[in-house]
């Protein structure tokens, strides 16, 4: 038989060792977990618009995926919906918030891009990333209303899209 005092000391050493091991294995190096990322952004382009002199509305309807610009009575060459490419190491859900409108400028004038959320993917429902760094694309669209007899010029600008990784 082992004396009771000696047995208690051995058991105490074991308890401390196990606890320290647990802390080492499960206490994270930092308080933050890794989130997904946007690793590619493709600009939104309305292309070259041979505008009808009475004006027109140019639309990129990307709610169901990549889309080209369309018009009612002008000729549009080139252009494309914007695109975000997202990925994550683990399964994540991403909520996306688009701006309501964005100004772009050219030659001292301003054009307003509107209806962005209405014409972009995953508005209001978000998108699920499968993890394993598998890329998921998000298409972005919008609309420009042009008045008649616009001067020839190039417009440019940028918008901020908010992403919430859960």
């Amino acid at each position: 038989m082992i004396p009771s005092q000696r047995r208690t000391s051995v058991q105490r050493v074991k308890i401390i060792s196990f606890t320290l091991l647990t802390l080492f294995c499960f206490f994270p190096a930092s308080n933050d977990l890794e989130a997904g990322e946007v690793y590619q952004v493709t600009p939104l382009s309305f292309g070259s618009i041979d505008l009808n002199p009475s004006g027109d509305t140019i639309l990129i309807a990307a709610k169901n995926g990549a889309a080209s610009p369309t018009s009612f009575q002008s000729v549009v060459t080139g252009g494309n919906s914007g695109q975000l490419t997202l990925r994550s190491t683990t399964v994540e859900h991403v909520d996306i918030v688009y701006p309501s409108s964005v100004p772009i400028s050219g030659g001292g004038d301003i054009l307003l891009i509107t209806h962005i959320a209405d014409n972009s993917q995953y508005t209001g429902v978000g998108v699920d990333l499968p993890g394993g760094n598998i890329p998921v694309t998000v298409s972005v669209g919008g609309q420009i209303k042009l008045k008649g007899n616009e001067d020839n010029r190039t417009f440019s600008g940028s918008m901020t899209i908010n992403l919430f990784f859960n």
Partner: protein
Amino acid sequence: MNKTWKKGTLVAGLALTGFLVMQGSTAMAGDVTMNIDAAITTSIVETVTTDLDLGSIDLDPAGDTITIDAGGVAASGDGGAAALPVATGASVITGGTSGLITVTSAAGVNFDIDVVYPGDGTVNVTSDATGATTVTLDSIEGNSGGGATNGTVNHTGGAPTEIHVGGQVVFPSDAEAGTYSGSMTITLNYS
């Protein structure tokens, strides 16, 4: 006794582990910037292809009215023949032609053209001779394509649309010989 201690230790270790995992869960947020571009161009070209020319007029000594009636010339790109000046009286006219405006655009850019001509009595034509006699080019809209008289001109992109322009000048009996010239502004409204 040994078995009891081990079980107690195992349960405590797992509980501690679970607590740490819960404390480490966070949601991440971020913004991304996307560039935007658009280029506005127009392929519409308006050209005064031919000036209005009443020709060389050997004027009736009693005076005369010289008219170019281009209202009936088709406003299309089919190269319809220009209208020629006609005298009411005994004047003899050589040469002359209705004016011509040509509108082009890229295929697919289709629109209507509402032509607005100067009002009657507003276009002066003045001779270069001593004394500088001035006469008036009149009845332009009634003798031209489009406008209120002949209606809107329809344009189809990819083919030229021609708008023929005419008018009328009354030369008095004492109109001096010489070259008469002037200019007018015609407005094209697109819709």
